[in-house]
């Protein structure tokens, strides 16, 4: 079972898991994702939570319904996932990292230089 954290509702964490798998290529474009039933039982979470995560991914254009067959990773999902993750990094994560670096007195330029050296 997945370890959930308390900062975010589980359906968002599920969405992130799927997104990361698409990014990593372990879920290929055109590949089926596990059914709501499979995920709910294996993760022991409410089916509505899984449906909500999948609906979000459908709305984002990363998954699509094929009637009678289930949900599949869309063509172009990899690029979309990369774009949305880049945005999330630049708008959310990087400002946080930057703040932390400032608090610790780490200069980003010198850090990059020391990496190159």
């Amino acid at each position, binding site marked *: 079972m997945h370890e*959930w*954290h*308390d*900062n975010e*509702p*589980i359906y968002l964490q599920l969405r992130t898991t799927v997104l990361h798998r698409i990014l990593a290529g372990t879920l290929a474009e055109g590949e089926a994702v596990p059914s*709501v*039933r499979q995920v*709910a*039982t294996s*993760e*022991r*979470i*409410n*089916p*509505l*939570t899984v449906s909500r995560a999948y609906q979000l991914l459908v709305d984002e254009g990363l998954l699509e319904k094929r009637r009678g067959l289930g949900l599949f990773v869309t063509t172009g999902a990899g690029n979309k996932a990369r774009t949305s993750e880049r945005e999330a990094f630049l708008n959310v994560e990087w400002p946080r990292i930057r703040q932390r670096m400032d608090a610790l007195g780490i200069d980003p330029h010198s850090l990059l230089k020391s990496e190159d050296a």
Partner: protein
Amino acid sequence: MNVIDARQLVKRYGANAALDGFDLQVPPGRIVGLIGPNGSGKTTALKAVLGLTTLDSGELVINGLTPWTHRAQLMAEVAYIPDTGILPRWMRVSDLVDYVAGVHTRFDRARAEAMLARTDINASRPVRVLSKGMQVQLHLALILAINARLLVLDEPTLGLDVLFREQFYDTLLNDYFEGERSILITTHEVREIEHVLTDVVFMARGKSRLAASIDEIREQYTKLTLTTGNTPLEGFIGRRQTLAGVECIYRNVPRDVLARAGAVSVPDLVELFVAIMEAPHA
């Protein structure tokens, strides 16, 4: 229409009130956890909402029916597993299946047999030789094969080992997809079901102390872990010292206000339960 609509139920045993103005509303398609300390009235509440006990006062409607006047009709629509093994020990498993098929109009024999086939239960053996885990599996298979709109489970995993617990939740969640069924479940193992639930009811001394959906809890309650040197903001409902620092739980306090004093997150059900149970009586 709610599957269960219970208002101000009172049930007294002598001077003690097992239910002391208990309210419970369960909409269709929900999985509701009824959580409370020993002796808080959970089992009485379950029996009451099934119409299995008389009440001193209160209003109770289940599936639009009053349990005392529409008993037979209601029993066709609800299924119940009590917290103690009640299957007749002398009966053979196959005879028990025959029996339920004979008395219950909504029993789907093929479904029960399919569920039993996934277990190690030998249908020709009597109930008494089955292990506790197998008896629970058998009971669950019989009950889940009844096409009921309400499933009531009292401590269903008590005394089961890890593997049986896994199978229990697998079966329950799998079966849940078969219909718009509501489940009311009591357990002390809050951590193992908290993500399965859509709603929780905390119960103490015969009363509901909190009744909310998981989404409402996420919206209303915040856990603040104080960073060193900060003093907690007033108004917390619970406070405890952990390795991470002092943790306080607040209700309806904006997160951005709390975030100035430390790290904010959503309390899990156990943390919330402890805070609410230890809070002074409202």
